[in-house]
C-alpha cells in the first residue's frame, strides 16, 4: 500500500508563504488567483496490504507526528501499489 498524506495550515491561519507566492503569481501577470495555501506532501510505502489497517496506521502517524493538530489539518489518500 502507498499512502499519500497532504498537510496544510488550518483555514484562518495566515499562511505567509502562500500569501507571498500569490503575490509572485500576480506579479507574473496571472489574474484571478484568489488564494494560495502551501503545505506538505508525504508519501509513505506500507508493508502490509490491508487497507483498513494501513489507514489506521497512517491516521495515527498523522496525529502523533506528521501533523500538528493545533495548526494543521491532514488528508490521506491510500492506494495499493
Amino acid at each position, binding site marked *: 500500500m502507498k499512502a499519500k498524506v497532504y498537510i496544510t495550515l488550518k483555514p484562518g*491561519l495566515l499562511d*505567509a508563504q502562500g500569501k507571498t507566492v500569490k503575490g509572485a503569481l500576480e506579479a507574473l501577470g496571472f489574474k484571478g488567483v484568489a488564494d494560495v495555501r502551501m503545505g506538505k506532501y508525504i508519501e509513505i510505502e506500507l508493508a502490509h496490504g490491508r487497507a483498513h489497517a494501513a489507514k489506521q496506521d497512517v491516521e495515527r502517524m498523522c496525529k502523533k*507526528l506528521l501533523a500538528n493538530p493545533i495548526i494543521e489539518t491532514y488528508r490521506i489518500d491510500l492506494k495499493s501499489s
Partner: protein
Amino acid sequence: MKCGVVIFPGSNCDQDCVKVLTDVVGQRVVTLWHQETSLQGCDAIVLPGGFSYGDYLRTGAIAHLSPIMGAITRFAHEGGLVIGICNGFQILLESGLLPGAMLRNTGLRFRCKFVTLRVERTDTPFTNRCQPGQVVRLPIAHNEGRYTADAKTLRSLQRQVVFRYCDVNGDVSEAANPNGSVENIAGLTNTAGNVMGMMPHPERAAEAELGSLDGRLIFESMIHAAALR
C-alpha cells in the same frame, strides 16, 4: 544549582548557555546528549536554541521524540525547572509541555535583532529578579517565532504569559511585534510555572561586551528559585 544543557543534533546555542551558566553566573553545568535518559541529578534543564534535526517536518517536531525528552517530561511533571530558548521553546511546544504552536514569521523574514520585552510576571522561577513591568532588551534570531494558540487556549493562558514584545517604553503594539505572534507573546510558562519557553536569547545578552546584561536576570532568577527549593 546544577544545570543540564541538552544537545540535540543541530543545536547551536548550547555552548553559549554553558559559558554564561559557568563563567558569568558561576554554576555547575553538565551537557546532556539527546540520546541520554538520565538528567544526572540536575536542578534545572536548559533546552538551547539551534536547528535540531534541521527543522525537518516542523521546528522541534523530531527533537521532542528524543530519549532525553522522556526524562525531561517526568522532571517537568515533578516540578523541575525547565527553560526552552528559541528552538528549545519550539521543542517544548511540540512535546506538549507548553500550550500552543509556532508558525513561520509574518513577512517571511528570519528576524535577527535586539528586541524589547515587557516582563508580565515576576513571580516565576525565571523572572523573580525582574521588576514588574520592567522592559528588558534581548536579541531574537528565528524564522519560526509566530506564536499561536486557539482562542480557548489563549484565554486560559493569560496568567502564564511572561514576556510580550513591546517598544522601548513598554507599550505592547503591532509595530513592536517582530514575527506576528498572537498578542505579542514572546515567552510563557506552563500552568504550574516551572517550565518556561521564550524566543529571545538571554544567553546572548549576559555580558556587557554583547550589548545587554538583561539576559542575566533570567539565569539569576533560576538560581534564586533553585536555592529556595
